[in-house]
């Protein structure tokens, strides 16, 4: 082996905790440092988890905040309790815009907590304790990961924990007892302000550390640490406008500031317990070989890995991921992807169905595909407003594409107002800038754009749009493909939003007949509401559809149904209905009149409009997919 190669080999070995070859001994197994290997394994697992299973969770995180490179934003953020951790968390979260950047950052955060927890604990441990307890330290990570399965767990908590643990490591290095204790007390005050109550971990670890010292003052200092930990939130309460409860449990560890999952405190508590146990073990096992070392090590590792797997599997939220995926695809106008995703696996949640319906309309295929997905009610087409910070975002996109700028603006504004941690959303700001621009409110649009100009990923778009907003020529906006269309399609009559969607949409379609997305929605609404009279009336009015060579499948089914309701027979039907549809209709009517068993009827006609209409059954209750329907 050449010298150069040996250097590289030694470097690799060193990284994995092995001694360089030249000095390697037969006891090398005993010297194996598991930390680098475990860190790499952990980070890989976490990275793959977020990158493959939670990519849209990452985007969701990014969309629920707006990190700005400005001094005002910095001070507004850091001056809140735990603000430094929150600021760093928000800074990192902006990169979640790119899936694998987000996954890497999450992997780094987990790795950082794991490494710092070991750094904080390892002082005083020797021999096999130094190799065994790193494995046990994966146990707190389990709870952090479970916590991380919830899309409302904020990155600030990983940062807060890592900073606190790093502080323990640094402070323990101070040899002088008095100096170390004073520094610990002062650091706790600073850390409490900077990262919030997770800094209690630091005080607990430092208290344990001091108790392990031999001097007579150790109990006094340990008690002082605890007293400080308990009283600092009380003092802070006099200075900040947050409930005392938040000052003990944190403000920015969970998106809902008044709620918190217990897992982070379980994780933090476990780190403290492991510190206690590891040092007790060190005290009683020092100098002695552990029996069945390999079995103990690998057994512990296996158990913890299984526990992590079971915990994460239990708390993994695939349904939320699917909803986020559909919402993200709507946001990015990936209409074909939406339709193909729905074809592979038909989602049941109305929020997903809303997205699929929009994709159908955008692709002009609503008449052919509408009942291939479970249409539960009008809300799956045009949702009403509910106070929530995520669902109105999707609904806002629907109304924006429909041309209802005011309603889109309302839904998105309200969604942003409902974000429980009071954050602003770059996604919302972008859409609000668009709606204000389309409404001719340039000053307001500029106000939002100025904020977006201070972001990393939205700045280019904001700069381009700002040029448009500043363009004194009104034609620039009117001729713009997006804004021009919105302005031309603006709702002309002044009326209030009401639950009577049919009336609102009918009015809009009358005044804006060229909006074929709205026309499709109106027809779909009539079908979903089983209002065939309105459907036929609207269909007859629609020049666009009447001018087409082929009437879409579900419209044909509805027209045939409507005709037979009034004429008993299909003879003389004035629409261009396919023979295939007429035959199928005949078969359905025959089977239905012959009281075919429900299961058979469902198998044969589940995705027909006739079945939807006659049975009143909501396909949402079924779990069939396109494929299974096609097979039947």
């Amino acid at each position: 082996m050449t010298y150069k190669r040996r250097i590289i080999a030694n470097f690799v070995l060193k990284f994995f905790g092995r001694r360089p070859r030249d000095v390697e001994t037969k006891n090398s197994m005993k010297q194996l440092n598991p930390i680098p290997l475990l860190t790499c394994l952990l980070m890989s697992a976490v990275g793959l988890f977020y990158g493959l299973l939670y990519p849209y969770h990452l985007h969701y995180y990014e969309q629920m905040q707006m990190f700005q490179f400005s001094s005002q934003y910095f001070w507004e953020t850091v001056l809140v309790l735990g603000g430094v951790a929150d600021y760093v968390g928000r800074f990192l979260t902006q990169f979640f815009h790119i899936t694998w950047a987000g996954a890497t950052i999450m992997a780094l955060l987990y790795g950082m907590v794991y490494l710092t927890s070991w750094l904080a604990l390892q002082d005083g441990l020797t021999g096999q304790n130094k190799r065994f307890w790193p494995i046990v330290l994966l146990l707190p990570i389990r709870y952090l990961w479970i916590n991380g399965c919830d899309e409302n767990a904020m990155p600030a908590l990983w940062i807060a924990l890592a900073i606190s643990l790093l502080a323990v490591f640094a402070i323990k290095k101070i040899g002088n007892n008095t100096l170390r204790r004073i520094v610990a007390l002062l650091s706790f005050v600073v850390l409490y302000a900077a990262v919030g109550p997770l800094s209690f971990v630091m005080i607990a670890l430092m208290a344990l550390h001091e108790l392990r010292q031999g001097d007579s003052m150790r109990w006094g200092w340990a008690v002082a640490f605890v007293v400080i930990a308990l009283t600092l939130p009380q003092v802070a309460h006099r200075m900040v406008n947050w409930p005392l409860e938040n000052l003990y449990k944190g403000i920015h560890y969970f998106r809902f500031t008044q709620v918190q999952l217990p897992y982070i405190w379980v994780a933090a508590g476990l780190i403290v317990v492991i510190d206690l146990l590891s040092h007790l073990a060190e005290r009683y096992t020092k100098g002695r070989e552990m029996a069945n070392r390999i079995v103990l090590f690998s057994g512990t590792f296996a158990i913890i890995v299984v526990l992590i797997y079971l915990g994460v599997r239990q708390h993994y939220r695939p349904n939320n991921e699917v909803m986020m995926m559909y919402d993200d695809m709507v946001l990015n106008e990936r209409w074909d992807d939406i339709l193909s995703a729905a074809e592979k696996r038909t989602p049941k949640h109305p929020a997903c169905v809303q997205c699929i319906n929009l994709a159908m309309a955008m692709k002009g295929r609503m008449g052919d595909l509408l009942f291939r997905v479970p249409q539960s009610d009008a809300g799956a087409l045009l949702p009403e407003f509910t106070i929530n910070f995520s669902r109105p975002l999707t609904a806002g996109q629907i109304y924006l594409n429909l041309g209802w700028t005011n309603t889109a603006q309302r839904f998105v504004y309200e969604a942003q107002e409902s974000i429980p941690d009071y954050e602003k959303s770059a996604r919302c700001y972008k859409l609000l800038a668009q709606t204000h621009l389309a409404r001719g409110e340039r000053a307001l649009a500029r106000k939002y754009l100025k904020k977006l100009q201070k972001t990393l990923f939205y700045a280019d778009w904001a700069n381009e749009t700002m040029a448009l907003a500043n363009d004194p020529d009104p034609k620039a906006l009117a001729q713009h493909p997006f804004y021009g269309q919105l302005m031309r399609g603006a709702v002309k009559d002044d009326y209030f939003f009401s639950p009577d969607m049919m009336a609102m949409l009918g009015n809009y379609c009358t005044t804006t007949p060229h909006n074929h997305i709205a026309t499709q929605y109106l027809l779909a609404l009539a079908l979903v509401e089983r209002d065939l009279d309105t459907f036929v009336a609207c269909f007859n009015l629609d020049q666009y559809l009447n001018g087409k060579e082929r009437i879409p499948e579900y419209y044909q089914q509805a027209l045939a149904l409507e005709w037979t309701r009034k004429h008993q027979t299909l003879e003389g039907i004035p629409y261009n209905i396919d023979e295939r549809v007429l035959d199928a209709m005949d078969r359905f009517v025959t089977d239905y009149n012959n009281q075919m068993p429900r299961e058979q009827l469902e198998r044969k006609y589940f995705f027909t409009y006739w079945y939807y209409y006659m049975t009143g059954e909501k396909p949402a209750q079924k779990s069939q997919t396109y494929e299974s329907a096609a097979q039947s």
Partner: protein
Amino acid sequence: MRVLHSHNIFFACALLFSACGMEQVKNPQMVYDQPEIYPDYRGVTIPVNIAPLDFTMQSDSVLTIDAVFTGSVSGELHAQGRQSTCIDPNEWQKLLQKNQGGSLFVQVAARFPEGWRSYTPFGIDISPDSIDYGITYRLIEPGYEAYTKMGIYETRLSDSRERALIENTQFRGCVNCHSYLQGDPRYMSLHVRGDHGATLISHPGENGEMKAYNTKTQETLGFCVYPYWHPSGRYIAYSTNNTRQGFHVGGHKIIEVMDLASDMQVYDVANNQLLVCEALKGDSAFETFPAFSPDGRTLYFSVARPKNYPTELKEMYYSLCSIAFDPDSGTYGTRIDTLVNGEALRKSAVYARPSYDGRFLCYTMADYGYFHIWHAESDLWLMDLQTGESRPMTEANSPDTESVHSWSSNSRWLVFGSRRDDGQYTRPYFCHVAEDGTVGKAFMLPQRNPRQFYDGRFMSYNIPEFVTAPVPLDNKLAEKQIVSDQRVQMGVVRNR
């Protein structure tokens, strides 16, 4: 008033001050127009004790802004900055003191990438009438139904320093409808909505102790909302409003707030009783926004006939009316007088606020409805209570919304909310009202870097109210009372 200064004098001044670390205004190109500045302080009338009127240029391409303020009596002040004028606060106060009753002439120069430009000077009138200690207001995002962080805040007008009085982060709810007795913050009524709904009232009669009340009773319509203190401090007039919101699908307006029912009553602080007037109760009329006259013997309010919503919404015209009130017995008069007949004018007049010297009544007028903050056509009107004549306050109004106003304790200043800045975010503006009813041009609440400040603030200043001293609100105690859910139940006395 607006004197064009000699270029040479200005240039000499600029040279002189450049020696103190400021950039020198070199070879300026003369612009024979007044500068386009933000906020627009050109020709405004200001009180002698207001914070420095720092301003920026409207154009984003300005690199440095330079202003020389010259007093009509004496004194001069030179300010220069990259983003705003950066006026020295001490020098500013001295300059105003020296020139009270006079004017300031402001010579502005701005450095663009291509060089300096010097503009025609503009004037600022300095009224000897001082303004109150500060204003309090709610900061809230002008949203629809949901709300995020909000609170009641106080700004000291001599230096624009802001502090939070209470914020909804403390208890998760909505705070609004704050009122003081002619600006005296010792008398305060504050309404809280949400899970911990309550009305907090404090006054010197209870040694300033704040109590949380449940204002909803069996006999009244609902919670007491819009408050107004009686000058004696014994009573508070409240309206109770059962409101609904409508959201415009088309058109320029976006929100409408409508009353489905509303009544009015007076709360007797000493006896913990709501004094209900039968004439002001019932379904035949919607009464709202009560206000006592300075002598405490008249109660002003707005009233409209119920209409069918939404079809007749645009015919919902509120009139300004008054009824006598006897503070000694706590009884109402029997006759209701109409001051402004909304139906006859086919307009809606609301939010009557009499000046405390009894000379004027300020109100807002819009096309219909009573929630004028969402009506761009809403303007301030001033009624001379001696003649009964009203006129729009053109000097203070703008093409956008003006609403929710309050008088200073000396009745010479009005603070009101205006959306002229961008059409959505309400900002506090002040205007001078002279004893003869002359109204000065309104100016925006000064800030150190106004462009950065107001661009960055995505909240509306809701219901600005003058206060004569810092509000003595212990927000921890208030938080405790709000969260405790222990409420003093108000009683009711009818047929008064």
